[in-house]
C-alpha cells in the first residue's frame, strides 16, 4: 500500500521535479507511470524507492512514512522493495548467479538456502542455464531479466521498474512485461515508469500520467 499527499521534490537550485502529488496505490495493483521526458517519472520512482527524500508532503510505503524515516531504517525498507533500473546496475565482476545471490547475502540467508532461492529466481526469468555466465555476456533482454531476478529474489511486496524496456527489442520487451504481469498475479504491487505508450497496449494497468511534475488531468 502506497499513500502520498502533497508530495513535492525540489532539487538544490530550486528545480521542482515533483509538485504537490497525491495518489494511493493498493497492494497488488499494477501501475504504469507515464509522461514525456522530464515529467518526473524517475524522480517519483526514486521517491517511492527511498532513493530520494521528499522535500515536503507525506509518502507512506508499506506503512512507513518515508518523509520521517530514519537513515538507519532505509535498508530494511528497501529489502521489501524490488528495484529495477533502466541501466540494470548489474555487477560485471561476478556471475549471473552471484548477482542474484547478493540481496540474499545482505539479509544473511544460509548459503544453501540462498543458492536454492537464487536458482529459483533465475529459473523464473528463464536464465537458469546461464547462471555461470558473466552479465556482460548476456543480451540486453537477458540482462534486464537478470535484474528482475535480483529484484524479486527477496520476495518483495512492491516492484519498482524505471524504463525497463527502453533499450530492448519488441520480443525482449514483451518477455519482460510478461514477467511483471506474472509477479503481479501473485499480489506483488508492480509500478513501472515508462514513456513508451506501446508498452501499455494490450494490458489493463492503472495509469498515472505525469506532466511537469504534476498528475495530468
Amino acid at each position: 500500500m502506497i499513500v502520498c499527499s502533497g508530495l513535492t521534490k525540489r532539487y538544490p537550485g530550486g528545480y521542482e521535479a515533483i509538485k504537490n502529488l497525491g495518489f494511493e496505490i493498493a497492494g497488488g495493483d499494477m501501475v504504469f507511470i507515464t509522461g514525456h521526458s522530464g515529467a518526473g517519472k524517475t524522480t517519483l520512482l526514486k521517491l517511492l524507492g527511498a532513493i530520494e527524500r521528499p522535500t515536503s508532503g507525506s509518502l507512506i510505503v508499506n506503512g512507513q512514512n518515508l518523509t520521517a524515516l530514519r537513515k538507519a531504517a532505509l535498508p530494511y525498507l528497501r529489502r521489501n522493495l524490488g528495484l529495477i533500473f533502466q541501466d540494470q546496475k548489474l555487477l560485471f565482476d561476478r556471475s549471473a548467479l552471484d548477482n542474484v545471490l547478493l540481496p540474499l547475502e545482505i539479509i544473511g540467508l544460509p548459503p544453501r538456502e540462498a543458492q536454492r532461492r537464487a536458482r529459483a529466481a533465475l529459473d523464473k526469468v528463464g536464465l537458469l542455464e546461464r547462471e555461470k555466465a558473466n552479465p556482460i555476456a548476456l543480451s540486453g533482454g537477458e540482462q534486464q531479466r537478470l535484474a528482475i531476478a535480483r529484484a524479486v529474489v527477496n520476495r518483495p511486496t512492491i516492484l519498482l521498474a524505471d524504463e525497463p524496456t527502453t533499450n530492448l527489442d519488441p520480443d525482449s520487451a514483451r518477455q519482460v512485461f510478461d514477467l511483471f504481469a506474472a509477479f503481479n498475479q501473485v499480489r506483488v504491487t508492480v509500478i513501472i515508469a515508462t514513456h513508451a505508450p506501446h508498452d501499455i497496449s494490450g494490458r489493463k494497468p492503472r495509469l498515472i500520467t505525469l506532466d511537469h511534475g504534476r498528475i495530468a488531468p
Partner: protein
Amino acid sequence: MNTWLRQHLAAFRRALRRLWAAPLNTLLSLLVIGITMTLPAAGYVFLDNLKTLGKSAAGVQQISIFMQTGASADVVKGVEQHLEDKVPGQWHFVPRETALNRLKSTEGMAEIVASLPRNPLPDAFIVEPRDASPETLEALRESFASQPGVAHVQLDSAWIKRFDAFLRLGKLAVSLLAAIFAAGLTAVTFNTIRLQVLAQADEIQVARLIGATDAFIRRPFYYSGALQGALGGLAAGLIISLGIRALATPVAELASLYGSAFALQGLSPQFFALLAGIGAGLGWLGAQLSVSMALHQME
C-alpha cells in the same frame, strides 16, 4: 549458526578473496606494513636484550661491604645478622686472610704483599641482592653504611644509574618511534582501503539500493584492514627473527671475548601475537577512517 555470525564469516571470506584477488598489491602492502612495524619492534627487542645484558654483566649487582680493620667478631656477626634479616638474595663473607691470599696469588703481587708488615685488608661481605634495581641498591648501600663496624660500602651505582637512564631514554625513543610508525601504518592502510572502496564503488551503490546496511558494506573492509595489519605484523616478526638469527653468532662471539655468556633472545610466540594484534588494531582503525570518509563522499 546465527545471522550475525554468518555475516561476519562471509565478510571475512570476502576480505580474504579481495586480498587474494590482487596478490602483488597485497604483497607490497604487507611489505610496507611489515617494514613500518619492524623498526620500532626491533628497537624494543634491542632494548630488551640490552636489559638482559645489563643484568648479566658481572659485578654490576654486587655490593662490597668492607669492615673496619679492627672490627671484632661480634660486630662482623651483627652485619651478618643484618644481611640475613634484611637482604633477599645471596651474600658471602670474605675473611681478611682469604683476601690477602687472593692478592698474593695475583701475578706480581706476592713480593709486594710479603713486604707488608701486617695484613692491611679488612674483612668483607660480597652481596648480590635479588632486586638489583638502582633504587634498591642505593637503599641497601645506605643501610649497610650505617651499621656499626662498617668502614666502606662500595657500589657502582653511578654506572647502573647511567645504564638505567640510557634504557629509559631508549624506551622513550622507541615509544615515540612506535607512535610515528603507528600513524604511518594507519595511513598506509587508509590508502589501501580507500583504493579498495573506490574499486568496489559500483558494488557498494548496488548493495545500498537493495537493502545493505552500512555495517554490511563496511565489514569486509574492516576485516581487510585488520588482516593486512595482522599479516604485516607477522612479517615484521619474521624480519626481526631473521635479523636476530643473522646476528646471534657474531654477538655471542663478541660477548665471549668479554667473558660473558650473553646470547641474543629470539622472539617469543607472545611477541609475534602482540605484533599481529597491534597490526590488526591499527589496520582496523585505518580501514574505519578510510571507509567512513569514502562512504560519506559517495553519499
